[in-house]
């Protein structure tokens, strides 16, 4: 894989083309049992796309927040997206707490994971520390149709919260609450 990517990089440099895959999604192992074995960090109701995006973290990383590291080396974050249940008006139905209800099976699963050294293979302009990103189909195979450059681009400016939108903040809140 590493060889493969370096060869691609060299080729792209020579030709002046953009890389078809800039990072190594193959490095991310899809955790088939994430829904039962991982720790849920909440569900985001997406009002624009009418989706529910549930976030999970691997149990090893979850435990470490108490030691003062919100997202340690080896952190794996899963984002599972499914449609919300819609009412007759075409808008998501809200429960008594104001939350969306699931209206279908997951269609997209995004992941970000980090291991010391991974970032070295990502071009500097896109690098997000040691994070790599991947997109999976519900059956757990990589989805090659999803471009990964935007993942790096959008998560990159969030350096203060370790390139996450939800993960770091929830872990930090838990620690602050003394849980």
């Amino acid at each position: 894989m590493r060889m493969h990517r370096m060869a691609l990089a060299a080729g792209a440099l020579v030709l002046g083309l953009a890389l078809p895959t800039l990072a190594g999604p193959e490095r991310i192992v899809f955790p088939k049992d994430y829904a039962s074995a991982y720790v849920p960090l909440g569900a985001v109701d997406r009002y624009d796309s009418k989706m529910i995006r549930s976030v999970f973290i691997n149990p090893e990383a979850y435990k470490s927040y108490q030691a003062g590291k919100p997202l340690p080396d080896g952190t794996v974050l899963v984002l599972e997206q499914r449609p919300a249940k819609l009412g007759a008006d075409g808008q998501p139905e809200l429960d008594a707490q104001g939350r969306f209800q699931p209206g279908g099976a997951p269609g997209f699963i995004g992941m970000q994971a980090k291991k010391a050294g991974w970032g070295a293979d990502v071009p500097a302009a896109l690098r997000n520390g040691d994070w790599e990103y991947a997109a999976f189909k519900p059956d757990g195979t990589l989805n090659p149709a999803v471009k990964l450059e935007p993942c790096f681009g959008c998560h990159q400016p969030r350096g203060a919260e370790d390139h996450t939108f939800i993960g770091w903040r929830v872990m930090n809140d838990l620690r602050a609450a003394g849980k």
Partner: protein
Amino acid sequence: MTMKLWTAPRLAALGLSLGAGAALAAAGNEIKVSMVGSTYAPGEVKAKVGDTLVFSNDDFTTHWVYVPTQGYQVSRAELKEGETFKLSLRRAGSFRVACGLHENMVMTVTVAN
């Protein structure tokens, strides 16, 4: 100037399409949060269950309202200039509001029973 002209009909349209939610919201107050100069104003809101937050992009750039706090997480991508996003508050507690596009753009909301 032009912003005001088309924000009003937009708000009306939103109100109409809310349906059942509007009835609940009508029981409480609408609290406006303005997005200007890539900050939320006010930076702190104290609300009650039944109130509705109305995020209004009065800025010259796109924003992305999202709440990272567990139990309150919502996200409204690409809120363009002049657009509004209504969030009905039905659960007491306190949460943080951030912006998906501007890391320093944050505020807090406390909802009382």
